[in-house]
């Protein structure tokens, strides 16, 4: 194991540790070596916590050797989007405003991964405060797409997408307010899971929008997303948005295949969302493969995307403005231009618009729930096409293109982005599976069955100077 190889997946690393073929120290050194070799090109990490990681790896190694293995994640490296607190480390949110912000305690999610025995390798790049866009007027550069470093990673969990796609880490935490886990997963060719709102604690994570923020994992495989969610999910009484809902065994759910399930393909959403022909064709092919695997595929219609966008943008801009209003007034020069301008849009929203958006949100959520009376999982687009060039990424204050991913932030349903092919330019395409509220198990079951049949995870980015 060395810098030339991608880290094994969580599932594979767990098997290697259990069999004694790999150790936590070896895995940690491999992750650190690969991070050192690639970070100048990818800018995935804001901070690499090498000494802390080595100490944790040695501790894990002693525990496992002493017969005290905590579970399948023990001794495996992971990373945190730099809005997650880890005690003693800075949480900068990729911003000049928080350069000296040292966390006193772990976020609940960090604590759960640490309790599982995972090894923190470092803090990962994000769009500033998990909003805005890629910016060059910040203390840290924007992350770059491992499939082609001239291209955008997607955001805001940009470093998380880059670190997992490049094989530095098998697991990176992201956050998703309007697609910020699923879009970088889609552009970088990884798996990204936005759990149901309330499923995973947000305590200790820098907020962007209280009623839309959702924490979740980016991984290379769906099985790994299930393993990560098993560690992360559960009620946190100190997070007011946390749901007290039983957590099932996600790994067991993966074994069942898709036979007997009904998949609702929101094919019309491809037109509504101005999805590119090659992305739409990849979704058609995914639907056909699921049918071949024994699922019943029917077409369903989502409500108009502009209704979702009016909701998502009104709520998101209002709540993020409430959080940032004082800093925008007193020290606006510390923000990146794009962050400052997009946060400022919240000043233009009226109280009536905010309440109307919440009322419409209830209606839209009910309409999507109604679709689940006819099917078990939805299949939709999550991106309109492959990642754009970084220099062509829209950083204007108002993005004219309607994003697709925020539909399920509005409704709160669990949504999984995963590879479903490659564009002519070699960049990944992505499909999204969506389930009933708190039914991540069925979403993961469909995603896993599709992934195994389609085989897209076999292809890794070719990184010059390293074997893929």
């Amino acid at each position: 194991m060395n810098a030339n190889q991608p880290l094994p997946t969580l599932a594979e690393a767990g098997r290697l540790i259990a069999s004694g073929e790999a150790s936590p120290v070896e895995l940690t050194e491999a992750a650190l070596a690969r991070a050192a070799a690639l970070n100048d090109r990818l800018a995935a990490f804001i901070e690499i916590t090498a000494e802390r990681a080595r100490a944790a790896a040695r501790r894990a190694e002693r525990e496992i050797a002493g017969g005290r293995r905590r579970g399948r994640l023990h001794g495996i490296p992971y990373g945190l989007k730099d809005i997650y607190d880890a005690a003693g480390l800075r949480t900068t949110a990729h911003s000049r405003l928080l350069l000296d912000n040292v966390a006193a305690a772990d976020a609940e999610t960090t604590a759960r991964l640490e309790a599982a025995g995972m090894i923190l390798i470092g803090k990962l790049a994000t769009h500033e405060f998990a909003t805005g866009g890629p910016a060059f007027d910040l203390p840290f550069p924007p992350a770059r797409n491992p499939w082609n470093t001239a291209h955008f990673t997607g955001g805001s969990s940009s470093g998380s997408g880059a670190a997992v796609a490049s094989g530095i880490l098998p697991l990176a935490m992201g956050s998703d307010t309007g697609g910020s886990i699923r879009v970088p997963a889609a552009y970088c060719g990884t798996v990204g899971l936005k759990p149901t709102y309330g499923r995973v604690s947000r305590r200790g994570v820098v907020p962007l929008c209280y009623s839309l923020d959702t924490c979740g994992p980016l991984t290379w495989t769906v099985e790994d997303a299930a393993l990560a969610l098993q560690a992360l999910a559960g009620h946190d009484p100190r997070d007011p948005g946390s749901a007290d809902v039983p957590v099932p065994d996600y790994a067991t759910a993966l074994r069942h295949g898709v036979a007997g399930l009904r998949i609702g393909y929101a094919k019309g959403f491809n037109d509504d969302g101005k999805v590119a022909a090659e992305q739409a064709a990849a979704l058609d092919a995914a639907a056909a493969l699921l049918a071949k695997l024994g699922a019943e595929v029917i077409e369903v219609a989502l409500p108009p995307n502009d209704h979702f966008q009016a909701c998502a943008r009104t709520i998101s801009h209002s709540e993020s403005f409430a959080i940032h209003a004082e800093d925008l007034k007193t020290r606006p020069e510390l923000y990146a231009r794009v962050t400052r301008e997009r946060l400022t849009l919240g000043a233009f929203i009226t109280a009536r618009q905010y309440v109307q958006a919440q009322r419409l949100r209830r209606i839209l959520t009910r309409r999507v729930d109604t679709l689940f009376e006819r099917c078990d999982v939805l299949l939709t687009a999550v991106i309109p096409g492959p990642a754009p060039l970084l220099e062509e990424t829209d950083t204007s204050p108002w993005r004219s293109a309607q994003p697709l991913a925020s539909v399920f932030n509005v409704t709160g349903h669990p949504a999984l982005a995963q590879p479903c092919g490659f564009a002519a330019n070699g960049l990944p395409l992505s499909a999204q599976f969506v389930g009933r509220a708190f039914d991540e198990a069925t979403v993961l079951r469909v995603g896993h069955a599709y992934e195994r049949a389609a085989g897209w995870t076999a292809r890794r980015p070719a990184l010059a100077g390293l074997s893929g």
Partner: protein
Amino acid sequence: MSDDDLDFAAALRRAGLTIPPERVAAMREAYRGMQRLLAVLDDPLAYEDEPAQLPRYDRGAPS
């Protein structure tokens, strides 16, 4: 000044925000784009379409 421009300036003044002169045009365009999208929020809604307990917290059943 148009009503839009007056509303734009009033919102900024109330929030205590200033925009660098070279970015005012882009922000005004953003403001107009946002208001165009948000026009859908002017559609009439029934009394019972209300947002209490959104987002849902404690159950897997439809809200």
